[in-house]
């Protein structure tokens, strides 16, 4: 059973609809006992880091996520869910969960490409350069693009966990893989067929 962590942070229902479309059963919950019964956990989110962390702490979901990760079980981060598995976020000056060493940073205000000012948030479709293969990205065409909407980006301390990068004025980390974690800045649930493929792959993933 797939569990989607419900922590009052946005796009939970759109992730649920995408799972329904690929024929995957799931539960949506913030109850750690229910989460314990899952095989795979999706940690989505749209919103601000400060509020999200306050809610997670109140529900003890931060500690629960640490335990889940340490137990070697599959965890997928999406957007805000990816940003706050790092140690720290510049958004609201927030201490985060710390499953992956590093910080979430804001795009510089004068981000530019070829002399043209780039708009923030980074909103729209962009590609991901994969540095290596990963089971969750199997059968995703190399030229596929994904839907992004964010003003902050993850910046892991260990470049070895960065498996995908995206260009938006700067080259930033858009996919993280560390042991039983795979986490992405874009929204697979809003990225058409390639995104649905990623969700399908995750649901079948057995991290070794």
């Amino acid at each position, binding site marked *: 059973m797939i569990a989607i962590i419900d922590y009052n942070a*946005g796009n939970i*229902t*759109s992730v649920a*609809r*995408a799972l*329904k*479309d690929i024929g995957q059963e799931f539960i949506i919950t913030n109850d750690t006992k229910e989460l314990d019964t899952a095989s795979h956990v999706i940690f989505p989110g*749209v*919103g601000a880091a400060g509020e999200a962390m306050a809610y997670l702490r109140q529900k003890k979901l931060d500690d629960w996520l640490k335990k889940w990760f340490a137990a070697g079980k599959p965890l997928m981060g999406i957007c805000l869910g990816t940003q706050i598995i790092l140690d720290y976020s510049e958004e609201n000056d927030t201490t985060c969960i710390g499953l992956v060493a590093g910080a979430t940073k804001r795009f510089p205000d004068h981000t530019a*490409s070829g002399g043209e*000012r*780039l*708009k*923030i*948030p*980074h*909103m*729209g*479709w*962009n590609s991901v350069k994969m540095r290596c293969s990963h089971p969750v990205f199997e059968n995703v*065409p190399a*030229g*596929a*693009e994904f*839907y*992004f*909407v964010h003003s902050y980006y993850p910046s892991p301390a260990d470049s070895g966990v960065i498996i995908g990068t995206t*260009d*938006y004025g700067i080259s930033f980390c858009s996919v993280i893989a560390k042991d039983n974690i795979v986490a992405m800045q874009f929204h697979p*649930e*809003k*990225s*058409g*067929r*390639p*995104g*649905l493929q990623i969700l399908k792959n995750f649901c079948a993933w057995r991290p070794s």
Partner: protein
Amino acid sequence: MISKRIIPCLDVRDGKLTKGIKFKGNVDIGDPVEAAREYYEQGADEIVFYDITASSDRRDIMIDVVRRVAETIFIPFSVGGGIRNLDDMRRVIDAGAEKVSVNSAAVENPRIIAQGARAFGSQCIVLGMDVKKVDASGKVPSGYEIVIHGGRTYTGIDALWWAKEAERLGAGEICLNSIDADGMQTGYELTLTAMISENVGIPVIASGGAGKPEHLADVLTKGKADAALIASMVHYRTYTIFEIKQYLAGRGIKTRLFW
């Protein structure tokens, strides 16, 4: 780098498409959900629904459409038309839309932008602007004036000032419609689009006037738009979205080509 977005716009009244849309030989004036699915398959990057249902007691029909669309397509979509307050926004977002757009209601009550941005995040709030070219004056220095109520009411508000004000209030995106170009199929209003886009830090969707792929190329380069709204040119199947994207690729404009 980020791709330019191509966004079909569907007008819906009482849960039905208002313009005939021709797909694969069958003329269908029916179901907006089917039309959305077809454009999703064709490679639309996003879809805009505009609810022109006149009576407010029939608006629940649109909420049902939104719910069905959300189960059918897995790209972002926005809903505008008749959004007057935070409750209207919440109903549309809860039903599965990524974004809501406000137009006349935001002119009459600008606080709705700030309230929406606070409740749902700026990325959810699109400001729709209907603009008409006028003689530049003290009141309207840019020479472009905001009109509301479907183009019937002149407001005396300068379009450039309003775009900046909406950004300050927390709008995450602007959908900029030229009333002069709308429906003409002779090209977007490039001067207006470039002026707004260069003066705000949020994305601008150009709307009104698309008839040929060249028009999209122009507005995405000279017009500095981040995205282009299209209607008739795909509804009547003169072009498919993929044909438009291939043309843009030939002009060196990056769009999403794999889906």
